[in-house]
């Protein structure tokens, strides 16, 4: 019998009384044997402690989930999680007053460089809609104080995003999600999923969001492909986005191959509004040729979109191989080619999402 098996039997108390006695006697007399035994014992102890700890961790996780649901990975925002999660613990209904508010001003300041480059006449197209004010009476100690100590007012920004592929990755504008407390991606059926920013590029003003795979989200197959070359001036283009609660279609043309003197952008004549930021820009065949970024608020019908070939270039320059592979488009063929516009839109719609962003003060 190998010593290790003997040690295990002894440690698991599987030796009979005689063998046990012999074993213990040998420990006293055979120093080598004793050392080996101590080593095995220490290792097994560590293994067992690991096992216990893992069991406890999973228990803690399970109970946490049962009591509070899925934790927010961004700083707490009151609207989406706070009441859902702690409502049960508080045992009282919290009264929530929602006060609608206006303006894109905070956004411009968080977008930062935009103002520097083009002064304030260019408006990023996300809409800030609500300030939430919560008034609530907690009863159970501990919880009550949260709402009092923490300022629950959160700026609420909305815009558009679209599927990069069906792995749970989405493209949107960075100016929308920068400095966000939390970002949610809302699908056609108004289910919201928590998303994290996995990649962002300040120069192009784009961000890639990810919804965790283990969330309940189902990702549709993506019918479009990303064009890896520049489109032409005068090409007809269209977009889908969320300037309103519901998805809105808009069409126009490529007005210039430079947007605001930037070769990475198109100037487009498509009616776009706050909320269109982050949306896809398609050519007639349904290839993605850009991402709606901003508009010139002094000149009606002048919008800007980041060129898809610049986005593709950025994606291919990622150094993290795992992420790079994950971000690959899993569709190589444009399934929208040759279809009428309304058919194209039907196929595209499930891949265009309303992005909701909560920002602290």
């Amino acid at each position, binding site marked *: 019998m*190998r010593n*290790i*098996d003997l040690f*295990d039997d002894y440690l*698991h108390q599987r030796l009979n009384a005689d063998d046990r006695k012999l074993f213990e006697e040998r420990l006293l007399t055979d120093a080598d044997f004793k050392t080996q035994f101590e080593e095995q014992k220490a*290792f*097994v102890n*560590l*293994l*067992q*402690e*690991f*096992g*216990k*700890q*893992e*069991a*406890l*961790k999973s*228990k*803690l*996780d399970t*109970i*946490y989930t*049962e*009591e*509070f649901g899925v*934790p*927010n*990975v*961004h*700083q*707490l925002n009151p609207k989406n*999680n706070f009441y859902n*999660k702690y409502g049960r*613990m508080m045992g009282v209904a919290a009264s929530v007053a929602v006060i609608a508010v206006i303006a894109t001003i905070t956004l411009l300041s968080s977008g930062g460089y935009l103002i520097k480059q083009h002064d304030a006449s260019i408006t990023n197209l996300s809409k800030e809609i609500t300030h939430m004010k919560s008034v609530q009476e907690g009863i*159970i*100690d*501990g*919880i009550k*104080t*949260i709402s009092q*100590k*923490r300022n629950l007012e959160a700026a609420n920004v909305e815009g558009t995003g679209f599927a990069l592929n069906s792995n749970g990755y989405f493209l949107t504008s960075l100016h929308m999600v920068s400095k966000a407390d939390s970002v949610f991606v809302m699908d056609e059926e108004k289910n919201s999923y928590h998303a994290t920013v996995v990649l962002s590029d300040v120069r192009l003003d784009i961000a890639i969001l990810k919804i965790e795979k283990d969330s309940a989200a189902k990702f549709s197959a993506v019918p479009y492909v990303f064009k890896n070359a520049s489109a032409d001036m005068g090409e007809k283009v269209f977009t889908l986005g969320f300037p309103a609660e519901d998805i809105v279609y808009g069409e126009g043309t490529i007005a210039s191959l430079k947007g605001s003197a930037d070769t990475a952008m198109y100037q487009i004549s498509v009616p776009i509004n706050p909320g269109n930021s982050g949306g896809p820009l398609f050519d007639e065949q349904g290839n993605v040729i850009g991402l709606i970024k901003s508009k010139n608020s002094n000149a009606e019908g002048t919008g800007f979109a980041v060129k898809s070939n610049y986005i593709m270039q950025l994606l291919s320059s990622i150094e993290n191989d795992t992420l790079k592979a994950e971000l690959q488009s899993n569709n190589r063929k444009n399934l929208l080619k040759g279809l009428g516009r309304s058919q194209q839109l039907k196929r595209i719609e499930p891949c265009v999402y309303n992005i909701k962003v909560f920002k602290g003060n």
Partner: protein
Amino acid sequence: MAALTLSDNEYIEGLRLSDNAVIRSVYKKFYPAIMRMVLNNNGTEQEAKDVFQESILVLYHHVQKQNFILSCALQTYLYSVAKRLWLKQLSKKSGTLKLDERFYEGDDFAEAENETAVYEEREQNLDKMHESINQLGEPCKTLLTDFYIARMGMDELAEKFGYTNADNAKNQKYKCLQRLKKIFFLDKEGKTL
């Protein structure tokens, strides 16, 4: 489920046994204050959750020892340990942080630093074990956890893993353990990877 009201010793005993109902009431009773501390100091819910769980693991690690004596209120213990853990994490984060002024106010439990340090040393080994086990792959991983952690017998294991007999299972277990040790100790000295 109605919250249990337990004494500190009952909490500790329940935690030692990793009792579900006790763990649930630990969350109810001790989590809110710690969550608030993290959320008020640049943390997220996820981070609050992690810090709390780690504090529980620190406590768990210590209560496994027979000679464990709680030298302050459990509430203070957990809060102080959580605070240490969170401060440590915050110091790792870059940038300027606005901390709640109350954060710096005196605690607390003087031993917290030591308690966390002892745990963290052990935790490094446990992390190493975690990595090694994951590198080990199946069926070794399950075979070893079934044997050493779930304490299943050789006959049972032979049947579960489709080995012809108990001796065969024992041989497999032996081989798997040798491999695990090799990974663990090599890795520990930084020779692999």
